[in-house]
Every structure is written in C-alpha cells, then in structure tokens.
C-alpha cells in the first residue's frame, strides 16, 4: 500500500530534495533582513561605513541605542502601544457585538448592511485618509492619538471576521438562553462571548499588527515630534539623518523585536485569524 501510494503520487526524491534546498535558501533570504537590522543596531559607525561587510558585530556597541534615546523614542514606543491597544480593545468590542447581530439576528436592512460592509472592505483604505485628515482637523483631533485610533476601529474587516465566527454558534443555545429568561446583553456576554473567544483573540492580534504597520495613517495624522509613533519616528529620523544607519537600525530593532516576539508566541491564533477571515471572501 505504502509503496503503491508513493508511486502513484509520482514525486521523485530528486524533486523533493530540490524543493527543500530552495525552501531553505528562501527562508534564509526572508530571515536575513531581520538579522541585519538587529546586528546592525550593535555596530559602530566605523564598522557600518567600512568597505567590507561585517557579518556579525565583533565589537558590539550600545552607542546607537544611546543616540536613539536622546530622541523621545520611549514616548514614540508608548504612543504606538497606546494606539494599538486602544484600537484593539474598541475594535474587538464593537466588532463582536455587530458581528453577532449580523450572524444571528433577523432584521430589516441586514442584507444591504452586509453588502455595504463587503464593498467598503474592497476600497483602498489609504484613499480616505486624506479626507480623514480634514475631518480630524475640523473636529480638533488632528495630531492626537485618537485621530489614528478612531478610523482604525471604523474599518469593517473586524465586523466581517466576527460575523464568520458568530455564525458557528448553534441557534438552539441562544434559544435556550432566551427560554431561561436571559436578556439580550446577558445572552451576549455569558453565552456568545465565550463561544467566539478564539475569534476575538485572532482579531485582537490582527488589529494590533495591522495598526502597528499602518504607517501612512500615522504619518498623515501625527505631526509634532512627541506625538510620533515608533515606526513613524524611525521613518522621519531616516529622512533627517539618512546616512546614520546604526541609529536607524536601533530604532528598527526596538520596533520589530517586541512584535516579532508577540507573533511567535501567538502564532497559532494568528494563522487561525488570517484563514478565518477568508472563508467566504
């Protein structure tokens, strides 16, 4: 049976070895930028400007970090964390409420509402950032962290994702809760919420990373130096002193390492969240 199977599947050992070799080479290529960021942040200016590359920092130095923290880098880190956590909490709360209603309630306007959400998701997010800038100036929120948080919460992807998860809740359980006399909110928090927890976890991680990476929005909305986020700060520093790569790599390390650590720790939820979002794309 076993030999018949491998014969039928028609994969030669040569091809398998070839595939593995290519995959490993690609893996090195994909890991390398992160490696170069981290090692680069520990190299002194002489090493960085030397004509030959130093594959590993032989005389590691902290001078880049010292320079980085002469900038309000800690404030930038704090800003991006506030933005990401704020967006995450608000998105998970509003999206799980709305996704549950869209999946499990029968009401007027349900079809059209869902269509609007799908259409909005297909639009380029960045295009509305320019009018958003004007809207935020009008309501006096420009150059505040809220100007980045609020539009992130409004983006309908979370609602779509939570609807997908909420659809798996058996209607009988909701009926049973109703028969037992539980009100709407009670049903949501003690029955629905625990059942869609994996979905909320996925949405939380997804929102966090996407918000962290939404450089365009941060660049447009946050102007004064102490309001910048860490990615924005690195980008703007790079514009101001484009040749000081050691300093820039120190900033990039500070921005990349925490989120890579979070990703590796929660990898399972992460991949789950990404694949759930596309079930009925």
């Amino acid at each position, binding site marked *: 049976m076993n030999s018949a199977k491998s014969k*039928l599947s028609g994969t030669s050992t040569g091809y398998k070895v070839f595939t593995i070799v290519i995959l490993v080479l690609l893996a090195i290529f994909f890991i390398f930028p992160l490696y170069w960021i981290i090692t680069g942040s520990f190299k002194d200016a002489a090493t960085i*400007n030397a004509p030959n590359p130093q594959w590993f920092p032989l005389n590691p130095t902290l001078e880049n970090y010292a320079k980085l923290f002469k900038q309000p880098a800690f404030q930038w880190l704090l800003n991006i964390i506030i933005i990401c956590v704020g967006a995450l909490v608000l998105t998970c709360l509003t999206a799980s409420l*709305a996704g549950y209603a869209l999946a499990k309630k029968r009401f007027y306007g349900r079809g059209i509402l869902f269509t609007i959400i799908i259409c909005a998701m297909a639009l380029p997010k*960045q295009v509305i950032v320019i009018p958003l800038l004007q809207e935020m100036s009008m309501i006096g929120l420009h150059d505040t962290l809220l100007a980045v948080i609020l539009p992130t919460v409004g983006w309908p992807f979370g609602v779509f994702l939570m609807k997908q998860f909420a659809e798996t809740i058996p209607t009988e359980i909701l009926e049973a809760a109703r028969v037992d006399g539980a009100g709407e909110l009670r049903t949501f928090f003690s029955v629905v919420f625990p059942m869609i927890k994996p979905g909320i976890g996925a949405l939380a991680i997804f929102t966090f990373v996407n918000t962290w990476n939404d450089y365009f929005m941060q660049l*447009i909305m946050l102007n004064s130096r102490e309001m910048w986020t860490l990615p924005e700060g690195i980008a703007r520093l790079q514009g101001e002193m484009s040749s000081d790569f050691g300093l820039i790599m120190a900033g990039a390390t500070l921005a990349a390492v925490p989120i890579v650590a979070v990703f590796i720790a929660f990898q399972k939820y992460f991949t789950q969240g990404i694949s759930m979002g596309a079930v009925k794309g």
Partner: protein
Amino acid sequence: MAQNPAPAVAGGKVKKQKRSQFSGMSKALVRRETISAYMFLLPSLIFFVGFVVIPMIMCLVYSFLDMGLDVGSAKFIGLSNYVEMFNDPVFRKGLLNTVIIVVVAVPSVTAFSLWVSSAIYQMKAVTRSFFRCVFYLPVVTGTVAVTVVWKWMFNTYNGLINQVFGSTHNWLGDPSTALACIIMILFTTSIGQPIVLYVAALGNVDQSLVEAAQVDGATKLQVFWKIKWPQIMPTTLYILVITTINSFQCFALIQLLTRGGPNHATDTIMYYIFDMAYNVHRFGYANAMGVILAIIIAIFSAIQFKVAKTDNG
C-alpha cells in the same frame, strides 16, 4: 474517515432556503429583533459611518472643488480636477508605474505563495509552522523596519549588495533598477498572508477525492489541476483581490526609498496623492485622484471575480 457521509450533511452546510429570513416569525418578534439588532450594531456603525462613510463622501465631494488648506475659500470647479489629471504627465507616469507594480507583483505573489504552500502543507506540523512563520516574518517585522534595512542594503557606498557583488551601482537612484528593487521588497512583504491562506485551503481539500483520483491513475499534476485547484479557487480569488488592493496602494516603500524619484521613475498614484495633499496642499486634486484610484481598484476586483466565476464553470 470519509466513509460516512452523514456528518458532512448534518455539519451545518445545509443550503439556506431562499424564503424570507423572517419566515415563521410574528410581526412583533421581527420588530423586537430589529430593534435589538441595531442596538448591537450601533457602536460599530457610529465608527463606520463617522470614519469610513463620511470621509468617502467628503472624498467624492472635494474632488469637484479647488481647495487648499483653507476649506472656506474652496471653489466649485466641476470636473476640472479630473480633466487636469489626465493631462498631467506626472499622474500618467504614476498610473503607469502603479499598473506595472500590480501586473508584476500580483501574479508572482500568487504563484509563488501557491508553490511554497503546496511544498509545505503536507510536511510535519513543526516544519510547516516554521516555514509559515519565516515567510510571515517581514509582515510582523513591520513595513518601516523592513524598508529601512533594505534601503541600507541597497546603499551605494556601505550597502551589503554592492559590497558582496563588488559593484558600485546606485540601485535606488537609477531609473532602470529603482522600480524593480521596490517590487522585490513589496514581494517579500506581501507573500506572508497568501501562504497562510493557501496552507489552510490545501489542508481542507477533500482527501477522499484526491485518493479516488490517485487510484484511478491520475498523475500528480492532474490531481492538482482537476481536484485541488477548483477547491482552492475561492482562496485564490481572495488572495488576488487583497494583493491587488495592497499593490495599488503601494506608498510606504516609495516614500521611504525614493520619494518618487529619480525623475518620477518610481512615482505611484498613492505617492502622488500624498504629495499633492501633504506637500502641495491641493486637497481637491488629491481627492479626485483618490476617487479614480478607488474606481480602478473596483474595476480590477470586478474583473477578477468575473474571471474566477467563469473559470469555475
């Protein structure tokens, strides 16, 4: 495992009846359900309307105005912004570059991620997770961090690439290589999500069909095209659409690496919109370009849906 078809039928995949969603509900119940549904939707709708729908409408309205920083002195100028756009050589160059990026990046990202996923989805769980992680790494490292390290590696004087190859080429400053470098970096930051999606989709392919085909003597290639490919079609479509949208919006790479230069060789529509709004303060013109970009993306998505539908028979 697939001997008993009963669970598959009972597993909730029963087709929804085409009757009204309200069948079997009294009028009072429908009203009560509608009210409670909108209470659940309200918080989300406030954000959605306030920060997605309203800016969309503003974008459209402002595209007919000649407007600078001072909103009060804006003038209605009809379609002038749109007319100007199509006579603007920088816009046309930006459109061309954007289309080049999309036409190169979207098929290569899709094909490459499908190849990687097919190679890794049957591996041991640990190996599979490892590769999936690795290819997702540029996404979580962050756009800005990845871009600045590539900028250093491409640097003429102390960049790794010139040092390794012993060359003195100005990769990002030469119009003939700048766009290619940008597409390459875009590629590395774009394939993470498609690979995760494809690995999940390939894992869900009905194994009984695959085995049946193999017993009937189908080759590996036939199994792929006749059985797996149709089943992962929805995933492919989703990947095409999201990759297209992302590639059309290519901005951070341009702004950080070349600022549209040299001589507009790497201008994209998104970068030109930013430049017009943020540096030149011509908000009416920037919004008009935004409207056109949205329309172009909508057309591309619609075509992809159409093609995928007919492909599926």
